[in-house]
């Protein structure tokens, strides 16, 4: 039996102890529609607890829809989701919001809202109506700002920030929610490569501290470098899943993206990487 302990009153400090073998999220037989289009077809997925899981796949393969179903934003037409061993439908809204959070792609904030005001919103599920911040709330906000390195920016309006700073502020908001499970939809899109790496490093560190992280990414190499568990999707189904070494193979990449690719290891770092196999360009001398 998995050991599961409810989070402390304000969800800070202790994360629930989850045995590593029990999945944090379990989706079974999920069929989901977007409008009238069927996007997911009887999909099964176990998300390992305390690990960094990355969903990869071509555009429109159902990654975002899957995240929305896992987060309870979208009710599946068929199938069930279990969150920390309990059916998602058994949770009250607020209880679910203390268990998992999702940073969606379409999040927008008023331009003059400050970083502190944004992070503050993450405390919603822990506060009662019109209640001022408790010391626990302040601690969670502080910790989230420290982890994401936006501490110096707390009183800046969001409109004045760079794309990387803004994205880290949003991540800080989801961290202030202090949920054991964090889902992120393309958290690195629109960031330059240095900021992409810093966001992914942060997510890997959070999973090392015991949080369950699920992110949709587009870069196969970054996914291979940072993920503990990789899930390849195509047309609403899971093609393959496993460790990066098991899944980042020419055969899997071909099946997922219709892309011919070479896979190798960087001799210096030992990191796995793939390069697309491009046709030789005419008119350019090869050394």
């Amino acid at each position, binding site marked *: 039996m998995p050991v599961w302990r409810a989070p402390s009153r304000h969800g800070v400090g202790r994360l629930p102890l989850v045995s590593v073998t029990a999945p944090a999220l379990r989706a079974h037989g999920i069929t989901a529609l977007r409008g009238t289009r069927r996007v997911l077809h009887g999909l099964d997925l176990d998300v390992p607890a305390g690990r960094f899981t990355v969903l990869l796949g071509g555009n429109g393969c159902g990654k975002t829809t899957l995240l929305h179903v896992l987060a309870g934003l979208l009710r599946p037409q068929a199938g069930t989701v279990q969150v920390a061993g309990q059916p998602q439908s058994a949770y009250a809204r607020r209880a679910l919001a203390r268990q998992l959070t999702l940073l969606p792609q379409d999040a927008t904030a008023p331009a003059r809202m400050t970083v502190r005001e944004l992070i503050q919103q993450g405390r919603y599920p822990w506060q009662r109506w*019109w209640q001022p911040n408790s010391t626990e709330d302040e601690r969670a906000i502080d910790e989230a700002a420290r982890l994401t390195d936006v501490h110096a920016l707390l009183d800046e309006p969001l409109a004045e920030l760079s794309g990387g700073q803004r994205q880290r502020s949003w991540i800080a908001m989801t961290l202030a929610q202090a949920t054991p499970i964090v889902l992120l939809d393309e958290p690195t899109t629109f960031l330059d490569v240095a900021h992409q790496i810093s966001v992914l490093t942060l997510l890997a560190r959070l999973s090392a501290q015991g949080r369950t992280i699920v992110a949709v990414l587009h870069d196969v190499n970054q996914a291979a470098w940072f993920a503990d568990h990789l899930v390849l999707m195509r047309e609403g189904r899971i093609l393959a899943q496993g460790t990066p070494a098991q899944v980042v193979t020419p055969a899997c990449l071909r099946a997922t993206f219709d892309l011919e690719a070479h896979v190798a290891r960087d001799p210096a770092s030992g990191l796995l990487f793939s390069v697309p196999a491009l046709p030789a360009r005419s008119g350019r001398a090869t050394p």
Partner: protein
Amino acid sequence: MSTAPSPLPGPSPRGRGLTLAGLLLVTALTAAGLHLALGAVTISPAEVWQALTEPVPGNPAHDIVLYHRLPRLLAALVVGAALALAGGLMQAATGNPLADPGILGINSGAALFVVAGLLATPSGASAPVPWLAAAGALAAAVAVLALGGRGQDPVRLTLAGAMVAALCSAMTALLLLLDQQGLESLRRWLTGALGSTAGTGLALPWPALATGVLLAAVTARALNLYRLGPSVAVTMGVNVGRLRVASLAAVVLLAGSAVAMAGPIGFVGLVAPHAARLLLGEDHRRVTLVAPLLGALLLVLADTLARTLIRPLELNTGIVTALVGAPLFILLVLRRVR
């Protein structure tokens, strides 16, 4: 891009809020004093004070203060606060900084239903004006939301509001043309006239106002999250469907009550929440507290102007708020476009 002026200095947002509330209270009291003293006849502050504390029956100045200007002042305070609260709710719930009960057609819808109801009521019987106004506000709000589409496109929503406002005003004008006698008594009310409540005494639609204020207070915290996008609100545990219904109901009750009391008055609901945000930042809970104070203050000032600009004649209050508010509206649009 220009930076927003930094909020007032102060030890903490909380302390700053209290300081500001104190300042506002003093300003509002001064404005209220001016409202009572100025008008067709200027009455000295000492005499205003005497009229309020130990009135002498039959003293004409005291009668003007007590039975003409005081009810009008109270109406301006209540109507200004209700419109500001409704405007703040609309701006938060639609994600549209240009939302206002006037601009989005809510006031015109309420006015149309009131005029239709009054014309349909046989003379002698009293029409349930607040309920007519609330029904009209609801009809207009539903029409604007339906035309505005599901995507939160501020431009489309604003255009839908302008169309509904134009349509309702045209239909109101048509009704008045059909009934020439009704025209004279309703014409003033339709341009926003606080004066019309003065004669009948203060028959405030208290239950509707109280329910609207309560709903606005209850939804304030969740609306903060709603402004970050519906999906964020859901993942934070907000019941988005219930939130939408509650804020719509609050807007309908508040704007409907305001129209029932004073006719359609525009721009107060637009300007007051923006002023509150400039002073106190983006937290919708603080906007909910301070915008009604600012709205009340604005309308008292506008009404004082309306009664003094062309004295001994009076302008309609709604005309003054439009003259002041329309340029501010254009300013807001330009700032966003830039």
